């Protein structure tokens, strides 16, 4: 099977997928391509059997039940094999939380924009209240000025992250369900109003990537997006410090 895996990753189907810039992505791509090659082979095989069966000379009907149960057993083993591999990857990505040292960023969806909040120098997010939301006044998330933790919070309309450091996203929505999707990070999680959902990942390759909305949320659904900029750690520190000074001179 290892040989098949090697072959799978060499074949040009890999170029269909967007660039993979995350630490966990290559294993997923590998497993996805393995799946695609297997189902392609099965589809071709089944069509061949159908086609040959149709053109070959007529014979008395088959009575042997093995021809039903042997392929079925083989398919069952194949599905178990794929499931186990997939579950291991899923468990690695989702069963446990982020490392304690992970960068904390809040992601908030609203019709039709994404906002990103960094907790600032106190490493604590300030309390937000929907009554205080006022994008025009520079407070799109409704950070409560009465809470001192909120005073140093940085809110951005692009997600800027340092390369090679794990990030712990807490995903939320102000209004309706949105889908936080970063194809180049092989990451997707719906933003559900009333729920805070954590996902974590590590961006590897600096660059600018797309953040999409993948859950229909209204007439602007198609244009609800943002950029993810992955920077070398030193540039990220400079960027965050500049934003920090802007909110807390």
């Amino acid at each position, binding site marked *: 099977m290892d040989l098949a895996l090697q072959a799978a990753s060499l074949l040009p189907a890999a170029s*269909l*997928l*967007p660039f993979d810039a995350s630490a966990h992505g290559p294993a*997923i791509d590998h*497993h*996805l391509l393995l*799946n695609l090659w297997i*189902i392609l082979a099965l*589809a071709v095989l089944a069509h061949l*059997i*159908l086609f040959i*069966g*149709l053109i*070959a000379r*007529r*014979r008395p*009907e088959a009575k042997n039940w093995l*021809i*039903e149960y042997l392929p*079925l057993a083989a*398919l*069952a083993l194949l599905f*178990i094999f*794929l*499931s186990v591999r*997939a*579950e291991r990857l*899923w*468990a690695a*990505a*989702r*069963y446990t939380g982020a490392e304690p040292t992970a960068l904390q960023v809040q992601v908030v969806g609203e*019709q039709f924009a994404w906002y990103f909040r960094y907790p600032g120098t106190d490493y604590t997010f300030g309390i937000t209240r*929907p009554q205080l*939301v006022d994008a025009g006044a520079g407070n799109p998330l*409704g950070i409560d000025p009465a809470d001192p933790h909120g005073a140093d919070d940085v809110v951005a309309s692009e997600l800027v992250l340092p390369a090679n450091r794990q990030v712990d996203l807490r995903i939320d929505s102000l*209004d*309706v*369900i949105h*889908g936080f999707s970063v194809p180049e990070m*092989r990451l*997707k*999680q*719906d933003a*559900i*109003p*009333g*729920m805070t959902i954590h996902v974590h990942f590590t961006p590897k390759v600096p660059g600018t*990537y*797309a*953040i*999409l909305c*993948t*859950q*229909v949320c209204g*007439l602007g*659904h*198609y244009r609800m*997006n943002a*950029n993810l900029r992955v920077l070398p750690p030193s540039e990220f520190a400079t960027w965050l410090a500049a934003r920090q000074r802007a909110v807390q001179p």
Partner: protein
Amino acid sequence: MTPRPDKLSEPVATMPSLRRRIFTTDHRIIGIEYLILALTSVTIGAILSLLMRIHLVWPDRVLPFYGPILPEDYLAMVTIHGTIMLFFVLTTAPQAGFGNLILPAQIGARRMAFPVANAVSFWLTAVALVILLSSTFVPGGSAISGWTAYPPFSAVAGAGPGQGLGMDLWLASIAVFAIASTIGAINILVTIIKFRCEGMTWGRMPLTVWGWFTAALLSVIAFSVLLAALLLLFCDRHAGTGFFVPAGDLVSGVIHSGGHPGNGSPLLWLHLFWFFGHPEVYISILPGLGLTSMLLANFSRRRVFAYRTMIVTTLLIGFLGILLWGHHMFVAGLNPFAASAFAVSTMAIAIPASAKVLSWLATVWRSRPSYTTAMLFSIGFISLFITGGLSGPVLAQPILDEYLHNTFFVVAHFHLIMAMAAVFGLFAATYYWFPLMTGRMMSESLGRLHFWGTLVGAYATFLPMHITGLMGEPRHYAQLSGVANAAGQLLAGTLPLNRFITWSAIVLSTVQLVFFVNLFHSLRKGRSAPPNPWRATTLEWHPALHPNAPAEALEEATVVYRQPCEYRPTPGGELFLPQWSADTNPDIKPE
């Protein structure tokens, strides 16, 4: 036996007026009414899909007599397309349409168990369709939240155009439809359980009947849950409750905590909706699975391979079908352990589905079947079921679904297996049972043209969607060009392939004109059908059950002696024993 075409135009003596003919309790006419409703619906749904495809790749084109298509128009089209196809085509036509038309005859019953309820069920469905279509003409237009109507988007009128009165009409339409489908499903269940003729044991029931039976069981379970969910959502919208809206939900600058002190959960709707929604897709495909098995055996002149296993797999698909709704929610905030559990139940359904495919392959293996149009569409059904089905286990793996969820890969998957395969089943049923409906045959040469055009068109349209999905194209996007940021580049990269898909969809739709020509031409000028033209063994072809059979034939009790599809080659030709044939042949071992 088979009606002479000239007899068809004569008014039937027992039904004097047009009104009595339309508001009839005759299950056959109700079945045809359902099919006419489904044909109207599928035409509307297909035109909408063409408009969407054209808008997606040429967003600046202006629709004649309408104007530019706005993003909300696009989403309204998505919503009506999905709703109309799922409910009014794929649920009504296979289950209620052909179910009414054929099911009683196939079990040797003279009528459905509850004829009046049957008529009520059809007219409620018609009312539901009118309500749905009328939402296009109200201020704000139709609902734009897709056929899944996730709250709070669907719970708050201010969340978008169409989410006010349009959404209320959508809810009303689907609620009426759910009631109609539940009544229809109970009718089918009781008919099968109580009205089988002598000798029609469970083991001798054709697989089509098993398909209708299992789909009806699922309908009763699924539609009752859907109805409850719709009522809760309606209360959230108008009665100040908060089942699905969390406290402090801020939509369009207004806080919607309603009058309620509690904290609702949008995920509750997802659970209730998909508890209905996933069985729903099996409701639409199960009759097609049964029909495919029967037609392949009929035209291969063989028994269905592993008949009992096929009965078991039908029931198993139905049973597992209600246990795997969570695979629609892998990235919706479900507990990750729950995702693993739903992944296992989803993978498990691949086993009975694979058993079906193996049985079909074994049935036609070295059979040299006769390639009637009905047989071609059944073979096409196998092909589409394989191609569309194989991406199912891929999507069943949560870690892969995380990347593929709500991309066009999923659109490709369910359009091939649910939409196209089910539609191929409907085409096969139409070509096969047309003689029973009209006493005439459909044109085989037009049928072959229709088949090849549809097969090529379906693959050309839906196969490339896998690729645009892998490239990252999400669903429900009103346009792919003119989008800002890095997302714009990602989406624009899919445009060349999307143009090809649009052209393919245009071809696929155009080919359907051949079907309409065939249908209307054969209705008036088709060759007169001989009795039992396909040399079928199931009871609907029994001469006494034929609608135009002499009255005295109807008095004879129908008795069933054997399983369907008994054919044996003999030196003098083929021995062919319908289920009602009492012949005992020493060559054939008793069951």
